[in-house]
């Protein structure tokens, strides 16, 4: 998806965007952006001055030709700003169009009674109300968001996730939520509608992606206040300059040498137009980068909060380790051999379809060449794992084989008056200390040995966490493992802390503790029992595969349901803020060169000594003012790609980051316009001479 995005980018500077930017040149649209609104007014004023000058009403300091040139440059400046916004919105629209295309008006099989799925009436999908029930069959599109109350089916959710592998949706548990617009591939589902018309997940998503209901975030508003304040100061600087120069000319016994058009030009150059023009584009582009990463934020605020996050609660499974533990060793006790342990373990695991169970069968085959036996044989009676016993196993030929967690096996063995030896205890502890999960194997209540299951840590994880730590972000591993196991994995993966034997309550408590110390916490969750913790976290990413409750509690939804997504979200959040800050710095730093271009230009006649301030050696007053204005307009276009793609993000401490960005955008912002204005002056001087 990200690649698709990149290839589209070139196309986005299209006629549609350019036209859309022209249409934004109306009073109401411009008013939303105060800085550019002032430029808009300046352009209108200059145009008016031009019209007046045609009728001979003018200060006779500048020509009509000059006035109209300034007016045109100002209109183009406004248009460039709109172009940035339109381009950013264009990306979102492209994403939204894909989503909209997937949503057809479907017929819903509405049920009067969910217990009688055969008796349905066909109605139009959009007429379904919250609380209605409907039936959806194989190869039909789900008409509305809802919760499965009956049946189980595989569902293709690629319309919203882009992931083609189907997912299972079934009644009860954490996989009961279905989204309107997705397609059932097999079987049928009975679904209760959970969202009002027009408020479905898909509607929200289209809205967010389009940026239609985009609201300014607090940080954006605060920045805008700063920019508006600067603009007001510059309005006053230029307005007072008019009376100052009148006053000074009076003292020198001359006429006021300053044209209002010059002052308008000076104002536009000094006002923070660069950041003002790109501000909304930066916000929209940040959102759209997040969408491109298949994360849907419920508000722009959530993305900014992601930049501030300094504690990440990461699920061990899937983020830090590969999803499944694997059997790594059979450790015999009490004089038994490893092969005996392997044999019993394999027997006990034959019916165990979990990846752990399979890895035991595979390891036994690999180490001792013990072949799997015919499972279907009637003499085997398999005892499945239950939450109560926490054991599984097999009974055959009067023999009872069990494997399970150490504590439960100990109870089980001791209940049957057998000894749970210290040797076994030691073996269990040793495995746990190394981060493994011990499973004790018994045959007729005698402990044969222990199977070591090990978590495999994903490559590169440790380095990633080290980088995050340098940036001041702590990683906390969440796991259901016991403390000893958890500590070993935590050490190996290089996380800062861990929460073992995690329950929804303990997760919430952990979040609460970190927040009390002033940290901002991000977490990922999927189940309904994660909902309270998600609601508590500052940045809460609900997996799309999760329940409706989890999604509602979170402020972002990860369409890929990928546990590592949190790190990407933090990156995107920081990048968004950095882009804002860097362009603001650049914009303000630009002012110095503009002063040096314009002040000598407008006062050279009144006070010839001020000529020395013309350090760029610009050829004439006209050329100096036009060059500064043209630079001011062009820099907006030049920076659109940076605004859309974000400044370079690096995982280094804040102090280094500040130094780096200050050099690049501060010092760069100081020097670039000196060069740019001079170059433009060199180009336009011969053109002006022709006129």
């Amino acid at each position, binding site marked *: 998806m990200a690649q698709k995005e990149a290839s589209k980018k070139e196309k986005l500077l299209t006629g549609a965007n350019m036209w859309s930017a022209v249409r934004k040149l109306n009073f109401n649209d411009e008013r939303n952006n105060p800085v550019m609104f002032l430029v808009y007014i300046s352009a209108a004023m200059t145009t008016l001055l031009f019209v007046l000058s045609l009728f001979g009403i003018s200060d006779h300091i500048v020509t009509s030709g000059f006035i109209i040139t300034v007016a045109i440059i100002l209109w183009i400046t406004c248009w460039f700003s709109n172009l940035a916004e339109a381009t950013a919105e264009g990306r979102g629209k492209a994403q939204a169009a894909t989503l909209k295309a997937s949503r057809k008006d479907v017929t819903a099989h509405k049920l009067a009674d969910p217990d009688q799925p055969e008796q349905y009436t066909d109605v139009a999908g959009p007429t379904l109300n919250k609380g209605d029930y409907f039936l959806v069959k194989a190869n039909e599109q789900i008409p509305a968001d809802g919760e499965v109350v009956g049946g189980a089916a595989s569902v293709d959710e690629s319309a919203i996730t882009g992931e083609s592998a189907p997912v299972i949706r079934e009644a009860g548990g954490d996989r009961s939520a279905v989204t309107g617009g997705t397609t059932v591939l097999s079987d049928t589902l009975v679904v209760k509608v959970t969202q009002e018309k027009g408020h479905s997940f898909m509607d929200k998503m289209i809205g967010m992606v389009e940026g239609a209901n985009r609201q300014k975030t607090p940080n954006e508003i605060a920045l805008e206040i700063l920019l508006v304040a600067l603009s007001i100061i510059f309005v006053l600087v230029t307005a007072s300059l008019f009376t100052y120069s009148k006053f000074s000319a009076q003292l020198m016994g001359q006429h006021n040498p300053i044209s209002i058009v010059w002052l308008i030009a000076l104002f536009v150059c000094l006002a923070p137009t660069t950041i003002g023009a790109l501000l909304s584009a930066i916000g929209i582009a940040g959102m759209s980068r997040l969408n491109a990463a298949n994360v849907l934020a419920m508000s722009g605020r959530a993305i900014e909060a992601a930049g501030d996050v300094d504690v990440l609660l990461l699920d061990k499974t899937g983020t830090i380790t590969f999803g499944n533990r694997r059997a790594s060793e059979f450790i015999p006790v009490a004089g038994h051999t490893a092969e005996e342990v392997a044999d019993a373990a394999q027997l006990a695991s034959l019916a165990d379809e979990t990846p752990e169970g399979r890895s035991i069968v595979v390891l036994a085959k690999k180490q001792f060449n013990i072949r799997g036996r015919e499972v279907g044989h009637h003499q085997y009676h398999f005892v499945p794992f239950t939450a109560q016993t926490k054991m599984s196993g097999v009974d055959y030929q009067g023999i009872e084989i069990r494997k399970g967690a150490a504590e439960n096996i100990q109870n089980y063995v001791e209940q049957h008056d057998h000894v749970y030896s210290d040797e076994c205890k030691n073996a269990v502890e040793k495995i746990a200390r190394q981060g493994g999960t011990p499973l004790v194997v018994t045959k007729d209540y005698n402990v044969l040995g222990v199977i070591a299951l090990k978590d495999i840590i994903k490559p590169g994880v440790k380095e990633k966490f080290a980088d995050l730590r340098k940036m001041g972000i702590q990683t906390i591993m969440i796991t259901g493992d016991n403390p000893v196991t958890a500590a070993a994995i935590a050490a190996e993966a290089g996380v800062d802390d861990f929460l073992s034997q995690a329950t929804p309550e303990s997760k919430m408590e952990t979040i609460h503790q970190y927040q009390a110390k002033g940290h901002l916490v991000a977490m990922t969750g999927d189940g309904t029992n994660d909902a309270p913790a998600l609601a508590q976290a500052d940045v809460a990413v609900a997996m799309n595969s999760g329940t409706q409750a989890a999604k509602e509690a979170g402020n972002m939804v990860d369409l890929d349901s990928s546990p590592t997504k949190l790190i990407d979200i933090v990156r995107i959040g920081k990048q968004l803020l950095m882009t804002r800050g860097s362009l603001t710095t650049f914009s303000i730093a630009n002012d110095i060169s503009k002063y040096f271009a314009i002040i000598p230009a407008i006062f050279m006649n009144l006070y010839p000594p001020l000529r020395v301030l013309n350090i760029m050696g610009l050829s004439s007053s006209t050329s100096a003012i036009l060059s500064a204005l043209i630079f001011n307009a062009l820099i907006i276009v030049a920076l659109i790609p940076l605004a859309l793609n974000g400044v370079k993000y690096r995982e280094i401490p*804040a102090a280094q980051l500040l130094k780096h960005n200050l050099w690049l955008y*501060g010092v760069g912002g100081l020097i670039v316009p000196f060069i740019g204005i001079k170059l433009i002056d060199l180009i336009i001087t011969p053109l002006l001479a022709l006129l």
Partner: protein
Amino acid sequence: MIKTILTYVLYLGVPFLLAIPVGHYISKVMAGQDNWLTRVWGPVEKRLTRWLRLDERMNWQRYALAVGAFSVLSFGVLWLILRFQNLLPGNPQHFAGLSWSLAFNTAVSFITNTNWQSYSGELTLSNFSQVFGLTVQNFASAAVGIAVVYALIRGIAGHQRHDLGNFWQDMIRAILYILLPLSTLFAVLLLWCGVPQSTYGFTTATLAQPVAVSAQGNVILGATVNRQTETVKVDGKKVPGARIVTKETLPIFPQASQVAIKQLGSNGGGVLGTNSAHPYENPNALSNFIEYLAIVLLPMSLVFAFGRSLGRPKEGWMLFIAMGTLFLIGMVVTGWAEQRGVHVAGIGTITMEGKEARLGVPASAIWAVGTTATSNGAVNAMLDSFSPLGGLLPMMLMQSGEVVFGGVGSGLYGMLGFVLLTVFIASLMVGRTPEYLGKKIGPGEMRMAVLACLATPLSILVGSGIIAALPVVAKSLTNTGAHGFSEFLYAFSSAGGNNGSAFAGFNANTPLMNMTLGLIMLAARFIPIVAMLNIGQRMAEQKLTAETAGTLKTTNATFVVLLLIVVLIIGVLSFFPALSLGPIVDALTH
């Protein structure tokens, strides 16, 4: 040369070394901790606390209201004293009451800690007005500054609290423990240097040698005076209309006490029109040094007190280094420019015009920077006579909003406004939503911070912009051309910076100028106060955000550099166009 360098080292080093312990002391006092004056003032403070219910906590609105009420009352009393001083006792010279506009301007000027004077003290004000009017406000307005900055500090330091302390308690502590003892000490030191302290008024003394003056009142140089015939001859020719002066009038007032607090409280309003250039306010090199020390001591100390009171001494050092850098730049440039002098066609290079011979060039240049950087405004030389560059730097220091140490209290909270703007930009650059010392800077904080930072430029630009359009203003000037514009700009910058120093050569005692400058002083003083109290409340109510490696550090060199750039671009660069019409073009021509 060595003497010059030694002068600089002394003037820079001693205040710095004293500021650290004094800052420590202030932080103790304002926290209500025991200190060496607790024995003296403890019982008094306790009793006042009980009577005035000073343990009542105030939120920002009540605090601001208290500041406002106190200031309105101060203004009213002072205005009445000045307007009707002829009806009051202690007026041996029988001065008339001030005009309503001059009384307005002067009252505003003293309650806002500006001490702009559109008049000459010795020719206008009675002893009663001086002592019970102005000196009282010299204490009060400085104490308001300390109180407000401490309300803000409590806001920054606190978390999830809903008050900023008690204004009256802060005032009483600032006066009893800080201003009174220090001003007593400095008054005694000045007395020892020979500054008079008396209610005599004018005393007449016979001149050792009579002086001849022309009909216009100008001294005739090289004249031969014949007392018998009452004739004045120059080169053997009689000068018609010339008069012989045999007596002089000495202005002897309660100078020592007034001067001590005028300097300590960054007030600057002298008893005499020529301020500390007059030998009765500043008789010798030692008194000059003592007064300079008094000028910069509290503004510098408060920066260290800030760090201590927050429990983050490094933050204080950071601010000190930032302010000190600007201070040093100002001092080096002004010193260099004054040492170099001005070249005048036909005369040659002059460096001493407008400066006192007993003080010399370095002490005058240092003082000019000190007094404008700290929002004090007392002068020991006439800035109008400084070289263009030497006049430019003091003007820039005032236009920055008086944040280079600045006024007592006001300089610190002004600088903190700039710190918030800097933190805002810098935090974004490191990918965080802005926060300062663990407190978030949202739209509300930002609105107030820009108000505080822009109050000075706004009020200067609006006020001077309007007045410049009126033809009548040209009459207030003594010079034409760029230098005339400098005189004009300086007056507005001085009011907008709540500084009060005068460039001289600009007549501000007209109803129009009195009103305009008065309004500018009010805006530049009270807008930041309200804004900073509001920020204090907002910060106090917040939870503390944890500091990590990802948090913006405000104590490293990068931040200091950025802070300086923000101060220069926002505070100073706004005046670049105006300055280029005045001192800059002046400097380029001379």
